[in-house]
């Protein structure tokens, strides 16, 4: 194992060990996706029973939207909560004076986030199948592209939030729970772009999820893969990730100048 991989593993091991010992933490990871699915799943089922086939299709899109959007939300929370765990345990000082590079810190956070997201989503996927006879895997191989794009979006949002934590300290931790949820109205998860007011549509268009969920609806309703939408989502994700990485690097440097790495937990 190279020294860099071993350093990344050191931090991943620290968090996996924490989860292994704490069932409330594991339960919390799965709680919200499951709750969201139950609320929207029963809503979708009610409409499909009441209004027949078109409503059933819309219901399917609703459930798929809930499950897929949770990838972004859980991916983002996975990074920020993992970072906050080290702030809460007053351990970051030891981490920052170790040879762990900032990029390795980020890779560790993303790795833990991936595991958290999988653990969080699995019960919801199973419940969707058992309660609503909805199989998200029936979307086919295109699901992989949805997953990667949505996870990527959760990660760059998280990097921006961690940058704010460097800037404002643990006092900004409430942003970890609010920012990604705040994007939801513009993400066009449950409705098409045309449902937004014209003046808001440019906001949605520069965010990857509008394109991803347009692709999802195309896959569900027409069984077509909207490659152009997926390509646009991927391009936007790369641009946003570049911006987020630059902001993260800038705020990390600024924190070392201001002394914020020493007082980040205050």
């Amino acid at each position: 194992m190279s020294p860099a991989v071993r350093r990344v593993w050191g931090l991943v091991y620290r968090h996996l060990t924490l989860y292994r010992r704490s069932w409330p933490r594991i339960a919390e990871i799965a709680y919200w996706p499951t709750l969201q699915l139950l609320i929207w799943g029963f809503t979708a089922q009610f409409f499909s029973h009441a209004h027949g086939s078109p409503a059933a299709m819309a219901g399917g899109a609703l459930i798929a939207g809930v499950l897929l959007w949770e990838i972004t939300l859980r991916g983002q929370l996975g990074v920020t909560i993992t970072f906050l765990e080290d702030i809460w345990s007053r351990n970051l000082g030891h981490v920052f004076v170790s040879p762990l590079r900032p990029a390795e810190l980020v890779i560790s956070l993303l790795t833990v986030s991936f595991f958290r997201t999988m653990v969080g989503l699995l019960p919801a996927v199973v419940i969707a199948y058992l309660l609503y006879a909805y199989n998200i895997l029936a979307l086919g191989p295109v699901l992989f592209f949805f997953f990667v794009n949505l996870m990527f979006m959760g990660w760059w949002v998280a990097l921006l939030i961690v940058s704010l934590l460097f800037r404002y300290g643990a006092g900004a931790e409430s942003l970890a729970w609010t920012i990604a949820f705040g994007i939801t109205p513009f993400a066009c998860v449950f409705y098409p772009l045309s449902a937004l007011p014209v003046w808001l549509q440019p906001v949605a268009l520069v965010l990857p999820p509008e394109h991803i969920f347009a692709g999802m609806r195309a896959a569900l309703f027409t069984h077509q893969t909207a490659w152009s939408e997926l390509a646009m989502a991927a391009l936007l994700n790369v641009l946003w990730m570049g911006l987020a990485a630059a902001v993260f690097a800038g705020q990390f440097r600024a924190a070392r100048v201001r002394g914020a790495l020493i007082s980040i937990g205050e």
Partner: protein
Amino acid sequence: MNAITVKNLTKHYAGTLAVDDITFDVAQGAVVGLLGGNGAGKTTTISMLLGLLVPTAGTLMVLGHDMAKDRFAALARMNFSSPYIALPQKLSVIENLRVYGHLYNVPRLSRRIEELAEQFNLTGLLRRLAGELSAGQKTRVALAKSLINRPDLLLLDEPTASLDPDTGDFVRTALETYRRETGASILLASHNMAEVERLCDDVLMMKQGKIVDRGTPDNLIARYGRDDLEQVFLDIARAGAEAGV
């Protein structure tokens, strides 16, 4: 080659001049004490040596590496302990040592942990959660963590603060043993003057961000005409106050 070479180091932050143009060396294998009252600039100096804080001016060479350009090469060969920075409380002692063993790329990690557990009487505590330990036990674990990579340079910020005399003596003996066996250098910030007299070859006295005096403990005591280092510390700390500074 010195373990630490600091030249004209200055740090302005949070609206204050925390470190004001200090210059000093720590020779290879030396134990140097960094003394001063609260707010004298000790922690800021140590933070810059650890790469946590970027100096406003001046240069820092640690173990032959320029901290402005190559800090990770130095960080791999040094370590740090402070009672004010915790280890994850929900991880057991052995898990904490594994985490830091991986971060410092320690070869034959299990063997190293066994050695440290034996040296610091931690064998019976390895499976206990760090959060369940007494203050003295936590200090021993923190010290074991700080030696996990066999550092060539150890930075310690009040390593025996709030410890009973027995545990404090245990820590000091462990540091003396480590230094004797490895030839490592140690920079020690402490308010315990007896500890500094016992451990340190050289002492830097800081006040208001400046190094106001330096010398061996015996030399400082003799020059100030005092009986011990605590009286010297008080003379220096109160000199400005009496002059209305």
